[in-house]
């Protein structure tokens, strides 16, 4: 999909396939309208329901440890991906825009790593001064 939207020509061709009048309008305004079949939205909607149910069941059945955390993260990333890609139409946007919006939040992971070390250190000092928890 990234290859198809990598250049303006590809994007126009993509939309011409979906709606002929949208393609002509896009040429006139040099801006692309997002028009996709309703079925696509319904399928994504159904998947979001299924994934939400799955993540709720993780808690309902009381799964613990690494299996719980990895399941939560997998369902979360799948849901987030579907919302951003289809509902927010990111999959059909220009690659320059995709990278400009999606890369910066990923860099937050560096901040996460720093704070994990910092929080561990805080916990260690608290245990050293106040003793283990009550």
């Amino acid at each position, binding site marked *: 999909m990234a290859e198809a939207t990598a250049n*303006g020509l590809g994007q126009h061709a993509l939309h011409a396939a979906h709606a002929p009048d949208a393609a002509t309008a896009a040429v006139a305004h040099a801006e692309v309208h*997002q028009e996709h079949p309703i079925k696509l939205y319904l399928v994504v*909607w159904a998947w*979001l329901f299924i994934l939400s149910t799955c993540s*709720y069941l993780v808690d309902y059945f009381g799964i613990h440890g690494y299996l719980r955390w990895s399941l939560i993260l997998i369902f979360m990333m799948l849901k*987030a991906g579907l919302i*951003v890609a289809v509902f927010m139409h990111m999959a059909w946007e220009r690659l*320059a825009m995709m990278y400009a919006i999606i890369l910066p939040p990923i860099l*937050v992971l560096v901040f996460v790593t720093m704070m994990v070390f910092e929080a561990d250190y805080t916990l260690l000092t608290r245990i050293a001064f106040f003793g283990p*928890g009550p």
Partner: protein
Amino acid sequence: MAETTMTHTSQMEPRPAGWRGIAADWASDQRAFKNVSWGKAMMWIFLLSDTFIFGCFLLSYMTARISTRVPWPNPSEVFALRIGGSEIPLILIAIMTFVLISSSGTMAMAVNFGYRRDRRKTAILMLLTAALGATFVGMQAFEWTKLITEGVRPWGNPWGAAQFGSCFFMITGFHGTHVTIGVIFLIIVARKVWRGDFDTGRPGYFTSRRGRYENVEIMGLYWHFVDLVWVFIFAFFYLW
């Protein structure tokens, strides 16, 4: 002015794929996002900044939860509801999740019907989205009331680590505010659609600019973002 500086993609030479294409788009004197309208690009950049705000909230929650010696209250039990004589864990939060996802679905359909110039369906779907959003806020108010009566405060709670309350009120409160603002703007844009502002080119009240059906999509971006943030809050705060 805006018209003359606009780069027409139809006259533009094709770009190489991948990183070289991105560099070509950003290089020299031109619009970086080519065929993306300024309204949509600015909404995305606003959402990016909002991502950092929520990211910082979730980060501080993570830091508080890792660094406390006192056990964290079990969200599965804290948010359980007694229905029909048995405790069902996290049920209210699950229902809230489904309500918000449904509102995202109706919003996506509204955007679609907007581009098909179906005023009636677009407005109705947007109002349905607003109603679902208001339901979500209502359930959140119920949840807050329940927790406050049980003794949860920003400085303490009956079950464990004191930071639980402050994290809960900050994160869900900020998200609820976003939903509320979204509901208000959904109603405003739905009214414009219903009146046919985007067909007749009636100037906006604040901006005096003519709106287009793309405004519905931009409104949709905000609304889907609210849903997106809830996905992360649900995973990290309620399920973790």
